[in-house]
């Protein structure tokens, strides 16, 4: 779960980068940036959850 979360963080960033590199239209670029940030938030949640799960398992 932790690795998946970290990969999602990087993947979201890659989408944001690609939006700035490849898209010229403001609306399309904004949509891709929003999608990238949403994926990053998902990844952040997964990484956070993975650390809580490890502690729950140790209890």
């Amino acid at each position, binding site marked *: 779960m932790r690795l998946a979360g*970290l990969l999602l*963080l*990087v*993947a*979201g*960033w*890659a989408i*944001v980068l690609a939006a*700035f*590199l*490849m898209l010229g239209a*403001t609306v399309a*670029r*904004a949509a891709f*940036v929003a999608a*990238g*940030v949403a994926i*990053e*938030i998902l*990844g*952040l949640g997964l*990484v*956070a959850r993975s*650390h*809580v799960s490890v*502690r729950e398992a140790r*209890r």
Partner: protein
Amino acid sequence: MIPPAPALSEAATVLVLACLLLIPLAIAGIALINTGLGRSRSASHAMLAALCAVSVAASAYFVCGFAIQGFAGGPAHTITAAGKQWNWIAAQPLFLRGLALDASPACLILWLQLLSVALAALIPLGAGLDRWRLGAASVSTALLAGLVYPLFAHWVWGGGWLAQIGFVDTAGSAPVQAVGGLTALAIGWILGPRRGKYSSEGGLPAAIPGHNAVLVLFACFLVWTGWLGLNSAGAMLFGGAPVGALVRVGLNTTLSAAMAGLAAASITRARFGRPDASLCANGWIGGLAASSAGCLFFTPAVAALVGLMAGALVVFTVEWLDIYGEIDDPTGSVSVHAIGGIWGVLALGFFARAGAPVQPLAQIAGVATLLGFVLPFAYSLNWLLDRVSPQRVAPEGERQGLDLHELGAGAYPEFVIHREDFLQR
């Protein structure tokens, strides 16, 4: 290509130098906050760790940090993508070779960055209080100051790709505060909580109060003074502000901190029946962290609003991360510096005064870079370091206190005795 900073007049140079001389007060203030919010049995250790972090950060930045960061208009490596050249890393020589070391903007930026990286290096120490080994903290600081910070700072201030797409940060809400705060988050995750913080039966986490509220609150005044210098120097060197604009910078910085402190006091008074000293201090610093990005571009009313929101965000996220995220962050450095800094960057995108060269989408891309590059990079480096040599002190050392365990003597030998520290269990 981003043009280099314009040459400063003699009066402006003197003013920048005066501002730079104030910044060590912010560094001292953050060190005092870290010490005051930790346990008394680790107080000397916290202060020594701060001194070591500043030393290591300055050394790493001298060796390779500035070579990676550089300055706008300086030599850099680029990659070509989509028909455009993107600047991704500086190409300065190692060990500061080749710099004239005069009062040119490049050299003033070097000094400002040496102080900024020292400030950023203290932020993760707050998240690792009472359980982070001194040696491990020093190596981690070297990675932050020699690699993570310079790379991101080059993208923002060195003419890098973030600056090319229009990302703006006057004095470091992103490169200094958020980079330090996200590294603190990585450290908090890797080290895990202090012993006794979370019960095996579940329920609310135990409150482990700081040992000296006076140190913490006095430090707020020091940090405020240092921040006036930090924001003013950043505005002149990175924002191209004329001397007269420093009035706006000073006002905005102060208003943001004041409103954040008031917000924290009001919220804690409303929720707990009385203001909470440590959360008020956190709110104050969070307001300063949020002010850095846009202190040159906000109107005073907007700066006050940004501070108000920063104070509220800090109070709620400290509690949320503690209870639901199970992140034991004794100084609230993730909330104060990461969330406060990110809020400042976004606020600049949406609330900059008319005519300011700011684009909301570029600001969001900057935040995405913090979350998608800086956090995984800092986490991976510290995870690897932890695999090579455990970063957390042994359970015996944590029970005894880091002062006795790592330094051999306590900070307050005449006044404080923890009987349980010396009894066999």
